[in-house]
């Protein structure tokens, strides 16, 4: 390496620490938001599960909780699968069809939650 190169390199040595700081700030802002939210979803799933389980025998995998974040309104979607024999006796459509009863095997609820 020539002497000139040595001086050029030390003079123009890039400051990498500010880049590290900026990358971390952006990453952690994102990760903190995400981890907070996924915790909330897990808690919701557990609590909803506890309430439903009082009335129906439901499986852990039978409950899906999703949150989608929109510009103005965010939606919270809760989908609960209940085994058909346990389904409450809603009057079935008066059809003589002997085939599979069309009882709603799935009770899906959608609640809208406004995010602050």
């Amino acid at each position, binding site marked *: 390496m020539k002497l000139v190169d040595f001086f050029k390199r030390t003079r123009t*040595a890039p*400051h*990498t620490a500010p880049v590290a700081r900026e990358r*971390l700030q952006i990453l*952690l802002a994102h*990760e903190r938001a995400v981890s907070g939210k996924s915790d909330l979803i897990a808690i919701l799933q557990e609590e909803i599960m506890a309430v439903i389980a009082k009335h129906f025998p439901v499986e852990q995998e039978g409950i899906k909780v999703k949150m989608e974040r929109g510009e103005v309104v965010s939606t919270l979607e809760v989908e609960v699968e209940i085994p058909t024999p346990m389904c409450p006796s809603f009057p079935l459509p008066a059809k003589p069809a002997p085939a599979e009863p069309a009882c709603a095997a799935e009770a899906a609820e959608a609640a809208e939650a406004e995010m602050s």
Partner: protein
Amino acid sequence: MAKVLVVTSGKGGVGKTTSTAALGAALATAGKNVVLIDFDVGLRNLDLVMGAERRVVYDLINVVQGDAKLAQALIRDKRVPALHLLPASQTRDKDALSEEGVARVIAELREKFDWVICDSPAGIERGATLAMRHADVAIVVTNPEVSSVRDSDRMIGLLDSKTEKAEKGERVEKHLLITRFDAARAGRGEMLNVEDVLEILSIPLLGIIPESFEVLRASNLGSPVTLNNPMSAPARAYFDAAKRLNGEALDMTIPSDRKGLFGKLFGRRAA
């Protein structure tokens, strides 16, 4: 009133065990009754760093499972009588640690000691969560480097949610310990500086331990750096950190081993 302190970091190799040994020895020489617990089951190293590797008979798992009494497993330090070690098991795995068993051992240690210092394993699995479970105080060890800072942020989140205190709605007192800090490189903009790390993690600073060959030298010899060379820069930084843990308000400085020209020319070879 005993305090349970966890030394944690998420990332491995940042200086948890070194810091546990150095701070424990500093607190013990200041007259406190101290016990260090190695929670790194299967990969124990605190015994080696403390120079007690040939004195291990019973370990944390034996005590947790009731196969040995606490008094049988505790190893008293030969240099500082107020310093004790409860080693981890090298042959078992972390599933052998039951939550109730750990709670019982910690409660028993609280009766006997002023400081119960838990050396956490790296990662966020069972060993690490059990080590922080009963903590009143936490030290998050961080290197001024992106992956270490990110992992520390994660650990701070866990300290605020997965500890006994957090579940009771209380707070674990958290402190940041920056290790392997190189003031010259930070000054040149090549390394995150202290302010950067503090701003990102936003927990109070306990100390800044400068990068130093003294740390390796001490671990080679099986002695905490605060006992091996108490006047060295990292040892002085650890002594200050220990005083802050005891509630003393000290100015934050970064001790240095930097020598004059004469020392630079001749010191290293003689050292």
